[in-house]
């Protein structure tokens, strides 16, 4: 019985959201605000249980690990925004977070997104046993990377040979955007299918698989 009620609530709220396709209306607004409110409430609950209780309350109160008090106090500095006099305190946890994040991240992020990617572009012809299409694809990849970078190279005016290469780069970018758009359409349709399957199958039981 409870599952019928909860499924019906979810289904009705789905229909409220769909009603926006006709025009903006109070039912849509109600569902939208409910979603925002519930999401924030849920996240606060989860962070309290899994963050505060697990990483602050239990270690300090139950395990008597008082070292945890230091990061807790630094974390509380985030609440400095409540007064203009204490606003500056926010800088401390932000600076620590940024410093730690940058320290951990910069080197590996560069390796992941730049160095390894670049290496795979340079070494692309060296793989043994490559067929014609693999070589062709790799040549295309190198041309694509090179011309797209040229397009974003603004120190020279895009004219003459540079202009031609930049134009080729634009075509590669356009193909990339087209692929992204096509995938976006597929993604949005998938969400619609998911909702329709929920409405017809889980709620109305009009179909069974």
């Amino acid at each position, binding site marked *: 019985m409870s599952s019928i009620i909860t499924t019906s609530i979810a289904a009705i709220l789905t229909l409220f959201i769909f009603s926006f*396709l*006709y025009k903006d209306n109070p039912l849509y607004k109600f569902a939208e605000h409910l979603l925002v409110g519930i*999401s924030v409430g*849920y*996240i606060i609950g*989860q*962070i309290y249980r*899994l*963050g505060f209780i*697990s*990483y602050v309350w239990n270690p300090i109160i139950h395990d008597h690990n008082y070292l945890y008090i230091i990061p807790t106090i630094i974390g509380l500095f985030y609440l400095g925004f409540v007064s203009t006099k204490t606003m500056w305190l926010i800088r401390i946890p932000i600076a620590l977070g940024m410093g730690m*994040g940058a320290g*951990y*991240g910069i080197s*590996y*992020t560069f*390796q*992941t*997104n730049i160095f*390894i*990617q670049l*290496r*795979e572009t340079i070494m692309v012809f060296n793989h043994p046993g490559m067929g014609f299409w693999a070589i062709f694809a790799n040549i295309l*990849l190198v041309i694509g990377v090179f011309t797209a970078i040229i397009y974003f190279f603004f120190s020279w005016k895009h004219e003459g040979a540079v202009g031609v290469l930049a134009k080729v780069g634009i075509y590669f970018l356009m193909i*990339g955007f087209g*692929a*992204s758009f096509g*995938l*976006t*359409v*597929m*993604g*949005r*349709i*998938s*969400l*619609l*299918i*998911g*909702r*329709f*399957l929920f409405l*017809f199958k889980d709620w109305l039981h*009009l*179909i069974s*698989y």
Partner: protein
Amino acid sequence: MNNFIIWFGKIDRRWLYLLMAIVVSIPIFMRMKMKVKPAEPVIMLYDFIENLEPMDTILISFDYSPDSLAELQPMAKALIYHALNKDVRILGIALAWPSAAGLGLDAMKGEVHNYNKKILGTVIENLFENTEISKYIESKKMKKELFTNIIADLIPAHFEDNKSTISVNKKLYAILEKQSVFSKVDSKTLKLIGRDWDYFGYKPGYALVMLGMGSDMIKTLNTDYFGNELKDFDMFSNPTYKIKNYDNISVVIDLAAGGSPGAWMTYVNTKFGRPVATGVTAVMAADYYPFLQSKQLIGLLNGMRGAADYETLINKPGLGLQGMGSQTFAHLLIIAFIILGNLGYLASKKSGGENE
């Protein structure tokens, strides 16, 4: 014709929404089945899991929220199903979205439950023939209810999260206990929490948790979603095959609706040198193909289509394959809209009308 094209270019968009709703609904009602030829990046991940040995471990990170459920939940279920049937151990975690905790739980517990139900189903059916038990069964309806209750309550109590409410008839429960039914069926075939799978739920800290798990999972995570201490579990404490860090994990699979695959690649693949695969929403998929070419990803599942591909490979139709008929016709409709829209634009431009 020209007039029709111009008229179509100016049609109220709500008619197009209605048309789209009809086109998506019809294949659902007709249970249209589309043949799917799995894509290479999906086959790569399938082959990787297929070639794992029993007791190998995969870590699935559920990094999505309910709005991406239609695309990513079928992937999760298909991957878990495959791993369970290969006797591969599964760990689940959610790092990016607190709201993913419930989705990951649903996928993991649901698939483990279905797996155990299939095995125990036969055993329980045989139990009902036992005279001591059969006297409690007065009707077919009661038998069905008992079966459901035993599956729902007793199995979790013994084999899953130990958080059962035990609503089954207490006398019957006592008989089942007395007959050591559960110890009889507790063979290696069943999937038990702490031995074959575990779920950590949402853990705040994101990159710090990823890094921490690289050195010591117990120290970093401490407890699982159900509140069990990890150190008490066989899979984390057995000296022969314990899971200590990423060295004991064959692949990390990130099911994501955001930028988390980048973080997993950065911290697990680049830093610790362990294989990473991902299943992403279609919107993001184009961003991750370059990482396949550089082998920073060993597999990629792309949206609902990726789920359908995987379901085809494991021969278990789910939400992914169910949606492929609607997906195909919706795409055809959109292609028709794009062509007609552009023709309408050109026609109105030619006739000197509005250009937009």
